[in-house]
């Protein structure tokens, strides 16, 4: 019997080397340019954290918190408004043109919607093989051989190499997207909600595939999701995002066992567990209202408008910094762990 357990290691994590360091990254989108002019959506508003080599960092938050935008900024699909993104000590934000393009070999992305992220006019072989063409790595027979290999690794039948994406199911399409991201042997993959568009019984297949690939190819993942159960299953560390800010970062075990930020705690308590007995005992912490607009985020701590333990005026006036509250557990809260 093979039990593949990846128990959270007790090694001092601070000694692990950061592969990607994100420093004060800001991403603002201008909206409604014109007479009113100058309104901006503060999608990501000053975010710093690091992703360590070989780990999975889960980035969670509700819709509109900026997690997908942040993922795209890190994957260099949107330019950052300001800040630095160091990848192996190279600041990606300063890279342009051909240098940035070269860097993409090591930095890949898996998209949420397996229907939208594959070109419907290209065959599966061309989709998966395109990165090889882009970097003149292989062509013709050699390319086909490598595509076959990656398809097999990702659980796709190489016999379907000349089929079109619309002939595949959602799960298989996501495998195609994963194969495309994998073929260049990247070191870092940003996975933006890769399973949330899939049927329940298919999700586990993709989760397991991502895990297998990580073990086999020593990949580092930034795994973006709103489903905290999946994040817990996959991640070594977790970053929680709320309205353009990181509110808490910690080891997966710490964050689930002992969340310090009231938002994290409420989020965790909101997620139902598929066990009626446990559910009967749990009492979710119900938050007031919904996530405010990122155009005019609340002053002070952005969560104070919904926070059950907010104290005034400190929470509405002073923005709490994201700081270490002991043993690498970072939280941005004036009253950590008091909920």
């Amino acid at each position, binding site marked *: *019997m*093979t*039990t*593949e357990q990846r128990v959270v290691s007790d090694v001092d994590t601070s000694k692990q080397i950061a592969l990607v360091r994100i420093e004060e990254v800001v991403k603002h989108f201008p909206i409604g340019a014109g007479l009113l002019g100058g309104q901006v959506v503060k999608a990501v508003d000053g975010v710093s954290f690091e992703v360590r080599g070989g780990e999975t960092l889960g980035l969670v938050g509700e819709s509109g918190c900026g997690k997908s935008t942040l993922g*795209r900024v890190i*994957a*260099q*699909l949107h330019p950052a408004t300001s800040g630095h993104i160091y990848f192996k000590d190279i600041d990606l934000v300063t890279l342009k043109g051909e240098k940035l*393009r*070269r860097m*993409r*070999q090591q930095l*890949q*992305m898996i*998209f949420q*919607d397996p229907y*939208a*992220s*594959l*070109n*419907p*006019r*290209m065959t599966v072989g061309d989709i998966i093989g*395109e*990165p090889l063409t*882009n*970097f003149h790595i292989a062509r013709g027979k050699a390319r086909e051989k490598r595509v076959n290999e990656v398809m097999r690794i990702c*659980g*796709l*039948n190489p*016999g*379907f190499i000349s*089929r*079109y994406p619309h*002939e*595949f*199911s959602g799960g*298989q399409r996501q495998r195609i*997207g994963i194969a*495309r*991201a994998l073929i*260049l042997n990247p070191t870092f993959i940003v996975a933006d909600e890769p399973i949330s568009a899939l049927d329940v019984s298919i999700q586990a*297949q993709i989760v*397991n*595939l991502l*895990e*297998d690939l990580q073990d086999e190819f020593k990949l580092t993942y930034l795994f973006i999701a709103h489903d905290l159960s999946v994040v817990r299953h996959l991640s070594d560390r977790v970053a929680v995002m709320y309205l353009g800010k990181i509110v808490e970062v910690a080891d997966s075990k710490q964050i689930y066992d002992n969340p310090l930020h009231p938002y994290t705690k409420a989020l965790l308590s909101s997620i139902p567990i598929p066990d009626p007995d446990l559910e009967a005992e749990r009492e979710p912490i119900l938050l007031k209202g919904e996530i405010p607009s990122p155009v005019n985020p609340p002053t002070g701590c952005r969560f104070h408008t919904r926070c059950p333990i907010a104290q005034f005026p400190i929470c509405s006036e002073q923005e709490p910094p994201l700081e270490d509250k002991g043993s690498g557990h970072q939280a941005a809260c004036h009253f950590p762990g008091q909920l």
Partner: protein
Amino acid sequence: MATAPSDYALQEDFVASEQYEVGESVSLWQDTWRRMRRNRLALIATAFVLFVLLVAIVSQFWTPYPIWKQGVGPTYQTPTLKHPLGLDQSGRDILSRLMGGAAISMEVGIGTALLSSVIGIVLGLLAGFYRGWIDSIISLVINVWYGIPDLLVVIMIVVITGRRELLFIIIAISITAWVNMARLVRGQTLSLREREFVEAARSIGTRDFSILFRHIFPNALGPIIVQATYLVPSAIIFEAFLSYLGLGVPPPNPSWGAMTAEGYRSLQYAPHITLIPALALGLTLVALNAFGDGLRDALDPRMRR
């Protein structure tokens, strides 16, 4: 403990995918043809267009009588067995000239459609993809060009340069006809560039040029082909009109427009000289438009109005 060894899981997915997951392979064009076949009007139109095209090709090698030869029979003769469509005012065989006219119409139509599509596609792609100042300039040209009557421009070009050979006519019409194509392609490009697969292409290091021609262009191809199909009849009628005014392909080339104009003077006693080329022109235009409609509906059922 519940376990599923990874090899086992992968293997099993693999088997299942072969058995159950992938349906029959249908390409876009097979699918289009399948839908087109169900549209009877479009089928008839397609058959007619193919027929005209065939006649045009045949006319390059063989016509019943030489196209330009006068006096092969009595002038103004109505249809007979020897001359199924009769003879014109110079005693030329109308069937032969009609065949030659088909070739000219098709050359002008297809030539213009190709040339103006290339101009429109390139400018539209550039404007839609790069936006910014490139888009501002191209859009300005499009809008200014749009406001000037096409006919005026073409007539001026022809009159000023005084050149009337076929290729020049095609160029003159194309200079005005690319505008709609450019608009269409620009709009398509603007929306396609925001699609996730374009983002994905960028993430795997695809160069702009490849994104344009491997990702955006093929996905805009359906509407482009439909638009190009509509360009053919509009160029044909444009040329016919020019010839009618005496500004088209110079005689004795048998343009349908010129034939209609020439016969006009004898409309009362020999109406067939005018009516036959007019009918040919009308039917071809209707067929081309119906073909375009059918293609549009078949390519993308959602585009149907």
